[in-house]
């Protein structure tokens, strides 16, 4: 949400930035003082500490100082440049501020509005090229301009590729997460399993991989007023471990939780109750049972088409990705190739369709450096394909999840437990049900 945009004046460049009083409410609270410091992020992701000062008298006349002059010199700002202040929210609802700079581009000596589309840009270039000799000149100018604007290539001419800021912005605004129903696990995952990415989850038999898979297939349906995606799930079962009755159990617990939540929010009870039922939740899971690796590959090739028909699919779960690839492949290089191709397809699918891909994997013992160690099956080449990797393991009598690999999360471990209602926080204080 943009707070204000302003063409910079001489005072703004030389001294401090003044801005409209009405924008004050979007800035951090002043409390009783007349100045407040806050952080603002620029396009490059750099943080600047700006101080907003007001007068206590009738007209506050807010101005921004502190790092502002540093910002001006670093960004080489000049009179007539436009800055845009905006306020965004991250996934947990914390506000942060962003500043963008737009410099006017001069084409043939005329200021060109920078908000031109690709088509318009092409049009301009076509016109330019039709003028023959002008083309070279315009190119020269453009290059010159580009050099001047190297800080902000995006504004030069709309291009197809994304810069890091776009990616970051997209991450902030679009990268939604699917809760695991275990608060501790969500914590270390930054809110849950992220969309647009491939997450691999592995562990010994009986650790709860399938349980987590079913839980995610249910949780992805969480309506938006509960902070969910309201999407559907594709569950690909290669092992036959998906049990309808268990899915129903988890779905019913989920429905109970949702209605509990509604009651808590004093939502219109009549409207919410009876809206979702356990069987509706199951209805929103597209379930595929796969019996050979050829079927698996065929299905993954078909997924894109399937998802284009079912656009509300927000998660694809494969339980497990390894099973059919461990049945005596003679030609290992062929296997590596097939797996690599499959992984690429899944990565692409996650990105294009803005959905989460969760691959459950088995673990195997491998002989490494003189001892037997647990590792994920399907080998090293495969492990490079997944963006995130979570290991589930036993720690004493408690189940733990450990983030083994992630480009943006710290590696951390969190306990969780598998209850009759599904995946939940580990309740070490109220002892697991006795086993003996």
């Amino acid at each position, binding site marked *: 949400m943009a707070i204000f945009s302003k063409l910079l004046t001489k005072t703004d460049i030389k001294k401090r930035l003044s801005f409209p009083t009405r924008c004050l409410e979007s800035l951090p609270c002043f409390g009783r003082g007349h100045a407040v410091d806050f952080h603002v992020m620029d396009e490059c992701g750099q943080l600047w500490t700006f101080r907003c000062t007001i007068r206590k008298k009738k007209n506050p006349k807010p101005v921004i100082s502190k790092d502002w002059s540093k910002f001006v010199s670093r960004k080489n700002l000049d009179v007539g440049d436009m800055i845009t202040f905006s306020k965004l929210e991250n996934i947990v609802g914390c506000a942060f501020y962003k500043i963008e700079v737009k410099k006017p581009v001069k084409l043939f000596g005329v200021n060109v509005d920078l908000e031109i589309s690709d088509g318009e840009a092409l049009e301009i270039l076509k016109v330019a090229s039709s003028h023959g000799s002008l083309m070279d000149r315009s190119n020269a100018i453009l290059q010159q301009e580009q050099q001047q604007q190297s800080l902000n290539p995006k504004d030069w001419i709309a291009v197809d590729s994304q810069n890091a800021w776009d990616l970051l912005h997209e991450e902030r605004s679009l990268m939604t997460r699917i809760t695991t129903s275990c608060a501790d696990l969500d914590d270390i995952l930054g809110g849950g399993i992220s969309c647009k990415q491939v997450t691999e989850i592995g562990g010994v038999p009986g650790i709860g991989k399938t349980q987590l898979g079913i839980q995610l297939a249910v949780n992805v349906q969480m309506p938006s007023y509960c902070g969910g995606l309201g999407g559907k799930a594709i569950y690909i079962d290669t092992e036959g471990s998906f049990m309808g*009755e268990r899915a129903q159990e988890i779905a019913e617990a989920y429905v109970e939780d949702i209605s509990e939540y509604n009651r808590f929010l004093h939502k219109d009870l009549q409207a919410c109750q009876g809206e979702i039922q356990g069987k509706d939740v199951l209805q929103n899971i597209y*379930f595929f049972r796969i019996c050979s690796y050829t*079927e698996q590959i065929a299905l993954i090739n078909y997924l894109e088409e399937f998802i284009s028909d079912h656009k509300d699919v927000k998660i694809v779960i494969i339980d497990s990705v390894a099973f059919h690839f461990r049945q005596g492949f003679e030609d290992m290089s062929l296997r590596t190739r097939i797996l690599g191709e499959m992984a690429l397809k899944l990565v692409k699918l996650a990105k294009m369709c803005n959905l989460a891909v969760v691959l459950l994997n088995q673990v195997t013992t491998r002989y490494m450096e003189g001892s037997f160690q647990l590792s994920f099956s399907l080998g090293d080449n495969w492990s490079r394909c997944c963006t995130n990797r979570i290991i589930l393991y036993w720690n004493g009598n408690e189940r733990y999840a450990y983030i083994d690999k992630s480009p943006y999360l710290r590696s951390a471990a969190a306990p969780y437990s598998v209850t009759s209602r599904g995946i939940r926080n580990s309740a070490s204080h109220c002892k697991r049900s006795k086993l003996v």
Partner: protein
Amino acid sequence: MSQIQSDPSSLRPAFMTPQKLLPDEKCSLGCPILDCCMGGGIPCNSITEIVAESGSGKTQFCLQLSLRAQLPPFLGGLSASSLYLYTEFPFPTRRLHQLSSALQSQYPQIFVNNYDPCDGVFLQSVNTADQLLDIMPQVESFLENSKTRLPVRVIVIDSMAALFRAEFDNTASDLIRRSSLFFKISGKLKEFAKRFNLAVLVTNQVMDVVDSGEGANETRIGNLNGMYSSGRRISPALGLSWANCVNSRLFLSKDEYESGSVGGGESGFQSRQTRRRLHVVFAPHLPGLSCEFVIRREGVLGVNR
């Protein structure tokens, strides 16, 4: 195959919703306490493994299941015959007959005209893992066009471990060959389980855990933190790869205890009793329950204690 080739759109995998999977079909073992522990019985469309040391009652469970499957669904069965692949000799024919006549007398209205429940159990001996894989096509055609009175919907393999005991060394190449066989066998079984909606029950033996002094060296699998039977620490044979191949694992433990002396006691007639328990090690649909059971003439029965 020709059908698929003629119509490429049929290649498109069909999805279903989990609703279709409900209710999961189970084959009851005929005892409510045991069934309760196993969520209703041995599930169809899934591989269930029973792990136990010898003499714990693995075979008893297998025999009981293969007979009980013939009961109609309202009595907990599947109205189905079973295929029993045995690897250890001799096959306990006498015990099967004993259980069969017990079942017959329990449900005379089902087994009319002197029908012997044994007739619904098809036996096949298997000696090696390769042989098991080799007879899979035969098994498939047997399942497909069974001329049996009831369709075959139960496959029992007793025991899996015996197939692998002899011919594999502890070398890397043999271990790789072995685990690839596991996955082939399990893949085939799961395919059958899905196509014919079979309940597959396999048994597995145990090994003693040799404490190498390094403490918790082995990988914990499932709900039990260490399996104990007859006072010894044990672990399932065939290792982690095989554990990946089954859907559920049950563990039978037994412990002998002295229940006090009988008849005066000064002569030292100590009565020793065996306490047996069934544990759910892991299962996608079950919590880690356990229950005690006894083996009687009529079969395996759960005990509430």
